[in-house]
């Protein structure tokens, strides 16, 4: 059953409503500095159990940076981050996380098979010596509909097939929080629909989903909350606005939507 969430619109850069024991991800004043520039600027937010949150914004707005800051991939210059109440630097806190990076990542120089790639998801902070569990790997591949490709090198796969492998690697962890960074990049329309349905089913089963998107695409109807970013700052954190950017070629499209959300003229 899908967890109900009634998000409230938050002022830019103020904590969202989701907090307390069921909060999975929390950021307070999170700032990431790269080459002297604040690519994420004093961001505060909290994401609770069962939510389906989209992080949306134009290119360079800090969407992926925000996701990476949430799970400790990028160090914070200022502010703090927690996963399920534990500071993000505690490795054990990451055991509840499933992460799907952008398609271009996660391959390496030697072509691993789908089964090998998915096996990497079996490891966690307490099981560094874990042997392969073929049954669980095959189950995960079956869940994403590519069990017949188990022994195929992922470099020989289409964008959609490769993305399913990365999702299977996240699912094998039985995550409480699933984070996906632009899951539809390089994925054909038919596969997008299937992946969206799969993610929707997971959320309906109680998994919290956070997804970085350039366009909402087939996930539009599933979202319970949207975080809009502009120049490293949150300009909206709450209900999904009626209008969201759909055209990846038109980054300026997001500006009138931000204006609609914040109720004043927006100047990037």
């Amino acid at each position, binding site marked *: 059953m899908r967890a109900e969430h009634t998000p409230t619109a938050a002022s830019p850069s103020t904590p969202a409503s989701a907090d307390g024991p069921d909060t999975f991800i929390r950021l307070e004043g999170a700032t990431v500095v790269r080459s002297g520039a604040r690519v994420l600027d004093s961001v505060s937010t909290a994401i609770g159990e069962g939510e389906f949150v989209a992080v949306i914004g134009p290119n360079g707005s800090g969407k992926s940076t925000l996701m990476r800051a949430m799970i*400790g991939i990028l160090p914070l210059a200022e502010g703090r981050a927690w996963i399920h109440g534990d500071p993000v630097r505690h490795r054990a806190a*990451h055991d509840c996380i499933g992460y799907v990076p952008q398609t271009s990542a996660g391959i390496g120089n030697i072509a691993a098979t789908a089964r*090998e790639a998915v096996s990497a998801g079996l490891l966690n902070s307490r099981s560094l*010596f874990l042997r392969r569990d073929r049954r669980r790997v095959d189950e995960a591949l079956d869940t994403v509909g590519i069990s017949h490709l188990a022994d195929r090198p992922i470099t020989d796969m289409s964008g959609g097939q490769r993305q399913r492998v990365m999702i299977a690697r996240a699912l094998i962890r039985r995550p409480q929080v699933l984070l996906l960074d632009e899951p539809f990049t390089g994925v054909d329309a038919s596969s997008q629909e299937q992946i969206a349905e799969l993610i929707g089913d997971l959320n309906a089963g109680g998994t919290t989903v956070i997804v970085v998107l350039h366009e909402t695409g087939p996930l539009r109807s599933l979202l319970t909350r949207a975080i809009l970013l502009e120049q490293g700052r949150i300009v909206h954190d709450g209900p999904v606005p009626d209008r969201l950017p759909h055209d990846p070629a038109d980054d300026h499209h997001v500006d009138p939507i931000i204006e609609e959300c914040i109720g004043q003229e927006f100047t990037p």
Partner: protein
Amino acid sequence: MSPFELLSSPIIRDPLIIALLVGLTAPVVGTYLVQKRLSLLGDGLGHVALTGVAVGWLVASLTALSPDVLAVPGALVAAVAGAVMIEWVRIAGHTSRDTALAILFYGGIAGGVVLIQLAGGTSQSLMAYLFGSLSTVTRSDLLIAAVLAVVVLLIGVGLRPLLFAVTSDEEHAQAIGLPVRMVNILIAVMAALTVTLAMRIVGALMVSALMIVPVAAAQSMVRGFSRTMNVAIVIGVLCSVAGLLITVFVDLPPGGVIVLLSIAVYIVGLLASALIPRRGVG
């Protein structure tokens, strides 16, 4: 002396055992370096090991020991220190990794020739360490090589799932809480240990080739990470042992012969993969 008697004499047997250990370990470490796109790390560490050899000579000359006694331990310490340093530079983000490797290259070779002169030797004294030699292998070299090989194989094969997860996708490994920094240091240190154990036979200048070329050859023959590593080990062992046996009967430098054999296998693999279409899997 019959070939059998020749092979059972310590003069040949000890280098042969080291060659076998090098053939086993170098491709294991090399697989992780290739996966991380760090193929030149072994080269950089080989050069740093030369400085360690020279430091060993210098210390030995100051303490009235035989010059070679501290050469391999010196190389071991220098290579491990270089490995940790390059990983630190990478983490700190002060310098790009290829620049750091280049500094390691030049600093290593420069330190080697300067310090060996201070120790009373000449750059000729480094030749056996640069290109490998059968005649200079001692019983202590064999013992050090055996211990290092066991350590590298225990880590490289025993922790394969963890090392694969980190080298394949560092970002994902960080996200799921794996000890990424520790694993990266571990791999760099394994490379340093392999450089040290291989230096006597293959030579510091060519040790990296034995880490990388068998892996490249295996990549042209099979798909999949584990299969690539396993085939690379077989190629590494065959080329090391065969190359060393050739130099027993023909007066040639073992390092060069072993590396040329590996490259020959790589070319055969490339030609075979071009002529025989790979069967689709799955």
